[in-house]
């Protein structure tokens, strides 16, 4: 049980590091827009990154939304 004398202080230090990082990210404006990042991950703008041999066949590309 004596180990908690070491572990709890470490936990408190980690928490303060996390809070510092959080404050930093707020200051950087990372929390200004809480809406678009949720959608952004779904955008397929990485087409040029897909190697040719891994591309799906042309005819199963029927996902157009109208």
């Amino acid at each position, binding site marked *: *049980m004596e180990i*908690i*004398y070491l572990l*709890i202080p470490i*936990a*408190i230090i980690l*928490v303060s590091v*996390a*809070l510092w990082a*959080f*404050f930093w990210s*707020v*200051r950087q404006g990372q*929390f*200004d*827009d*809480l*809406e*678009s990042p*949720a*959608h*952004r991950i*779904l*955008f*397929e*703008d990485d*087409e040029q990154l897909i190697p040719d041999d891994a591309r799906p066949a042309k005819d199963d590309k029927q*996902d*157009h*939304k*109208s």
Partner: protein
Amino acid sequence: MSVQRTQALAPCFHCGLPVPPGTDYTTIIGGEQKSMCCPGCQAVAQTIVDGGLDGFYRHRDASATTMDSRISSEAHLADELALYDSEAIQAEFVRHTGDEQAEAMLVIEGITCAACVWLLEHHLSQQPGVSQFSVNMTNHRARLVWDPSQTKLSKLFGEVLRIGYKAHPFHPNREEQLLEQENKRAIRRLGVAGVGMMQVMMMAIALYAGALQDMEARFVEFIRWSSLILATPVVLYSARPFFLTAFRDLKTRQLSMDVPVSIAIGGAYLASVWATIMNTGEVYFDSVTMFTFFLLIGRYIEMQARHRTGKAGNALLDLLPASATLLEEGREKMVPATELKPGDVVLVRPGHTLPADGIILEGSSAVDESALTGEYLPISKNIDDPVVGGTINVEHPLKIRITDVGPNTRLSAIVGLLDRAHAEKPVTARIADRVARYFVLAVLITSATVAGSWYFISPEDAFWITLSVLVVTCPCALGLATPTALTAATGTLRQQGLLITRGHVLEGLASATHIIFDKTGTLTEGNLSIQQMQPARELNSINPYSIAAALEQASEHPIARAFHPYFQIPSVNTRVKVNAGVEGEVEGVRYRIGKPSYAAELYQGVTPDQPDHERQWLLLSDDQGPLAWFALDDQIRKDAAFTLNVLKRLGLKVGMLTGDDSSAAARVADELGIETVKQGVSPDQKLAYINELQSNGASVIMVGDGINDIPVLAGARTSIAMGSATDLAKTSADAVLISSELERLALALMVARKTRMVIRENLSWALLYNLVALPLAAMGFIAPYMAAVGMSASSLIVVGNAMRLSRLPRIRRKLRE
């Protein structure tokens, strides 16, 4: 464009409006031919596809805004945008960051979904010289970093326009900077409370488990000290707003809900600190942090909704143009509208907005004053007539001598009225604050009595028993009763398309006795459409709709716009006569459309009688005689009648206030069964009417959309703006009906009433719990751990009860009955 005919009546692939039958604007997107409604949309879609950004159409979940056809006349626009290259104008919003880079803050108009953000960022980043372009979807602001030596700013503005959006320079005012700071501070407080709560909770579990397994006292003491360290920032930093408002309220001798909340947080924290230092009693750090965190979540959501409506930046931005064409010794010169002085002469082209108040020197035209009066039909103006800044010139170029600028204009006067209305708005005490007043007094008196009595019975127990009384009566459940219910209801209504921006709305809706609507744009669609066509004689080969549309195509007059969807064949030699009609040739035959007398001149015969006198009729004629009648009217919204019926059934008195003094107002009222109608009233008369109602004890909901409604929106106890309203109207209203579907109003009213019921249940439960627990604690029967369990259980019951508000089916069913 293309040979293949696309299917008629499919919605425009770009903006979602119906494609007028017979038109043929198409773009090939993703290998398929898609039809567009107008050349504007087509140009935008083509730019998007050419830039390789057609992924936009796959990602978006809302239609883009319609592009006006002005985009096709790029040469003209380039002129206007060139203004943004001038040093004087750039000085206001551009910052030079050294090494050939400049940074500008912009506001983008027309963003509807996340795909718009994606499209804008990708398109602009592809432009030469642009090193960074990021768009914030929440407040529609963009940050542009570019190299001015490579690209002109006006070109980048043009690129934004080319893909269907509009960019304006962003000048943050003092108020907005404060909002941003408030937002960041709130996020930091929430984060600290969340992290602190989780850590303290872990320690608490160790303590609870330790109590059961007989943990050694030295470990218990160590864990308590650790909890103290973790809980301190939560109380001192995150919970500060509660302490500050409580302190302010106490100074003004008021008791709001923040007072018992602060007593609970502060009291439990101090008691736990005391217990930790003295190594006796119990600690309540877990309850303190959890309570703070839950309350902060509620406040944060409320604040976000409040900020959302004020996002577009400068409130008058929409109404006044950025530039004006100044006439100096016969030469035209583009200047920023803010540099105009009284006495200047400006030229206003058709379709442009007047930059300031003035008098017409030359020309006659129709002016669209809908922004000020709500009236959608333009008013004809001649030499020496006064005109108002912010209104739109519709037909012919006008030369205007400026008489008033800045704060002296009519538009500013209306904004001034808004401030006054805000100041006079009746203050409504929240039900929780009323309860809090008695509650705090009761707790303080009881604690004092308990402390006094125990001091005589056994002085050494007095402190701990008094403390347990305070902890047991900790108003957690009471404090959570209202905010949780409001948060749940606000979230539900937001999903249903009603954005609540101020805290008192739900109570205002629930207790409303009157609901007053504006007419144009609220009960009606706010634009003219063709209701009926009546042939005057045997028809020849061409459909009268096509002839009328061909003649009206060139004009931007609201009457002409009603015909635009039917455009098929072009007309030549088209001439517009102000306040009369249009003349032109279609496939070799001369036609006239307009006022009956004007159309009759063409065949030099008798003017026929119009079919009825209730609506506005236009006559189409050729040189043989009259051809067809068209009835034009502003359409009543489809769900208006149903909504008004439900509202009446709910016991509300329905009324209508309108600036329109024609017979149209009476007809709308008649058709919808509205009894109280005030027509032909000015903005301050509207406000006076509402104030009179409210001083007689009525609780009024005002629903409106135009600039002319702003004072009355601000003055009504509860006000709701339509989603299509101007930004200024939205910011002065308490809630925004995003979807513009009136039916949601009835739903909101029912949700609000249910919310009021849930709040009452919650408050009664919290009071009941306290009434039972208090005497037991006062007599010293309650062990501290029992107090903690009881406290958590009662809070959970309150939260669970509030969550019922997020389930809608039952309310929906009731609405349909």
